[in-house]
């Protein structure tokens, strides 16, 4: 087991070098000069441009810039944003709780709807229930997020007035930033109605962000369940006269879950990094929107640092998933 974890960990180093190199070069390959973008129509004089370049270290050869960047990262310094001049790490830490909160709620939505829907479709295979679940999930899977978000917003927020349009909490509540998680902070504040307001603000974004993962989970669960349900031991269990729900939940689902867990693990990465559109539409102050804006502004340190942190988180999540398999399924541990 120890050796297995060690082998997995040793792969992290080349991945890390790859990510830093890629983000560093790619953002610089996009044409556009951050100083010009900052100045806009007004422009800066050539002398001022040179002065700013020197100040920001852009006048040095690329390999020196890369070396400075990586040595900074190794010392835990991701640099400062060119625009706000704040450390990248502190900006990340301010915004990350919002992303985590949204991703968690979306994951809960996706699992709690996707899993039962998949099981149900498998058990009622070929019926109208199965077909509707599959149609529904295919539609969900191919839904353009931006459009879907605006549609839900128009129906539920503007026309019906059931949920708020965007933001994290109603502006009448002046909630202090303690943990960065609005659900927790609103509870801590003790203000009446604040928690309810925070929950209602999470509903639509969670549904929107969770739609694609939900569809993926439902489809995966269905096919995995179908495979398991045709196994001999299920027939044996049924023949023994075990209650049908017990056969499905205890005997079939347990074995069908392994590929589903893989998919859920992969979706975590997507939820964390893929929340860009959802965050933009719902004005959700998370890292997706932050990264996109930084690319537009050519804010090199933020793009490099932000992507690096997100990538590290995904590496860690995948590592944990791999280790979990190793524990759950000894065959995986030994074959690699």
């Amino acid at each position, binding site marked *: 087991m120890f050796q297995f974890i060690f082998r997995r960990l040793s792969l992290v180093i080349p991945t890390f070098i790859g990510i830093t190199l890629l983000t560093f070069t790619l953002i610089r390959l*996009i*044409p*556009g*000069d*951050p100083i*010009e*973008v*900052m*100045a*806009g*129509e*007004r*422009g*800066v*004089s050539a002398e*001022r441009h040179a002065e*700013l370049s020197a*100040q920001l270290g852009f006048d040095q050869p690329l390999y020196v810039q890369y070396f400075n960047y990586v040595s900074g990262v190794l010392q835990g310094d991701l640099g400062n944003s060119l*625009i*706000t*001049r704040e450390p990248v790490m502190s*900006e990340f830490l*301010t*915004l990350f709780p*919002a992303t985590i909160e949204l991703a968690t709620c979306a994951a809960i939505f996706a699992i709690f709807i996707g899993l039962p829907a998949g099981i149900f479709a498998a058990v009622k295979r070929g019926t109208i229930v199965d077909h509707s679940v599959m149609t529904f999930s295919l539609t969900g899977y191919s839904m353009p997020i931006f459009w879907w978000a*605006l549609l839900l*917003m*128009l129906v539920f*927020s*503007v026309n019906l*007035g059931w949920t*708020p*349009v*965007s*933001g*994290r909490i109603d*502006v*009448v*509540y*002046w909630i*202090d*930033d*303690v943990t960065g998680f609005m659900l927790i902070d609103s509870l801590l*504040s003790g*203000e009446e109605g604040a928690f309810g307001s925070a929950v209602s603000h999470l509903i639509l974004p969670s549904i929107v962000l969770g739609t694609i993962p939900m569809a993926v989970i439902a489809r995966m669960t269905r096919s995995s369940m179908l495979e398991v349900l045709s196994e001999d031991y299920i027939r044996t269990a049924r023949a023994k006269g075990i209650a049908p729900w017990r056969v499905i939940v205890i005997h079939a689902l347990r074995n069908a879950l392994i590929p589903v867990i893989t998919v859920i693990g992969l979706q975590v990465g997507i939820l964390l990094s893929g929340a860009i559109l959802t965050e*933009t*539409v*719902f*004005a959700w*102050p*998370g890292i997706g*929107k*932050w990264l996109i*804006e930084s690319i537009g502004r*050519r804010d090199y340190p933020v793009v490099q640092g932000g992507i690096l942190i997100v990538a590290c988180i995904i590496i860690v999540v995948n590592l944990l998933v791999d280790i979990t398999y190793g524990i759950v399924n000894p065959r995986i541990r030994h074959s690699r």
Partner: protein
Amino acid sequence: MKKGLAKLTLALMAAGAIGTSAHAASTLVYCSEGSPEGFNPSFYTSGTTFDATSKNMFNRLVEFKLGTTETEAGLAESYEVSSDGLEYTFHLRKGVKFHSTKDFKPTRDFNADDVIFTFDRQGNKEHPYHTVSGGSYEYYTGMGMDTLVKDIVRIDDYTVKFVLNQPEAPFIANLAMDFASIFSKEQADMLMKAGKPEQLDINPVGTGPFQKVQYQKDSLIRYVAFEDYWKGRAKVDRLVFSITPDASVRYAKLKAGECDVMPYPNPADLKQMESDPNINLMSQEGLNVGYLAFNTQKEPFTDVRVRQALSLATDKSAIIDAVFQGAGKAAKNPIPPTMWSYNKDIVDYPYDPVKAKKLLAEAGYPDGFDTNIWAMPVQRPYNPNARRMAEIMQEDWSKVGVKAEIVSYEWGEYLNRSKKGEHDTVLLGWTGDNGDPDNFLYVLLGCDGVGGSNRAQWCNDEFNDLLLAAKQTSDKGERTKLYEESQAVFKREAPWVTLAHSIVYEPVRKEVKGYKIDPLGGHYFYNVSK
């Protein structure tokens, strides 16, 4: 955690100061289009940052009279200009208070030291605060203040004299700009002593109508009305900027009552907004101009007849209809009609392809020529869709035999290359900074701007001399005459096709009273009630 609790205490204190419970306090919500870049307006040039800082938290020596581009007394009650135009003496207002925060309680009123600190920090490279937080003062240098201001003299506690290197009439308008927002020297000194000077740019205090309480990046900014504001307390108790980058979402929030005022609506939504009984769609001509600049240093645009011909060959009304969808007005001068010294008597080039062809033939191009039109890759207030605009012009020009290829680059690259004059013709525009005609005419068309903001690369002595003369005198009547004359020269020489001035729309909810559109593009909430 500790910091969080401290902020909470501050918020509670602020709430207590209002003297009402949280829910009874009147709150005005402004759905802003983005996060401010920071809280020191002298570092930045974007309107988003100014709305969140200078417009509502700070004051300047002179200020723009709300709803106009004229200046009025601000923190200076009055000023005198010496007869040579080199010395400006300001008499400061007494009894002006700065905001107080949990870390800083001002012990004295605003005085001359604060004025000197504010400008010295930006202009004096030896100043201890000059390099704090990166220390680049884009507007101060951009407006040429670094070479203009020779000295700032403290006469007494309430009198300050600015000495200039040369007479510059737009100087007063410059002092009304956001970068000239007055900071507290007392706070700066305290923070310097505490070893955290950069806090001045994160949590500064101002003298303005609203005081910042909390900022959550990309989410919201909270302000409370400043009780001791020298003009009297603001009409609303709280002001919230709810940061909402997408225009459709801002509109949805406005409809749902989640915000009271929103900037920059989608042109496509305007019709619906107009018919909404809960929304008051306000509009005003913007202080901007969209233009096509000919590169006058490149053949065949060195010939004035070619420039005139292409001006005649461009059908502006089609452009206004297709690109602005009614939210624009055809431009005949390089400055917008809301600006003083706008020359109403100028006659624009009509759409006349026949005459255009004749002029081209006279210039030696009876069969036209090949050229290019650069189209911006981004949407700007003065041009919502440059690509579409370029296509219409391409079509128009082809009717007189001129074949134009449409070229575009990434925005930063576009600005940079057009500055160097790599284009034949380029679409661009400008939004005014300080309401002074010099800020359009000299910046965009003066000889100093060649190789920079003068995209036509046009240096005409007759035109330039008029502008220089207008800089030298502070007599507004005389300046008006000079600028009017310069516009006639401009039209005759046709370095640009003046295309459009856009109309700025601001939908506000019906219950909002007293909101005025600022022609300079800012959003002020001092006079607003709900």
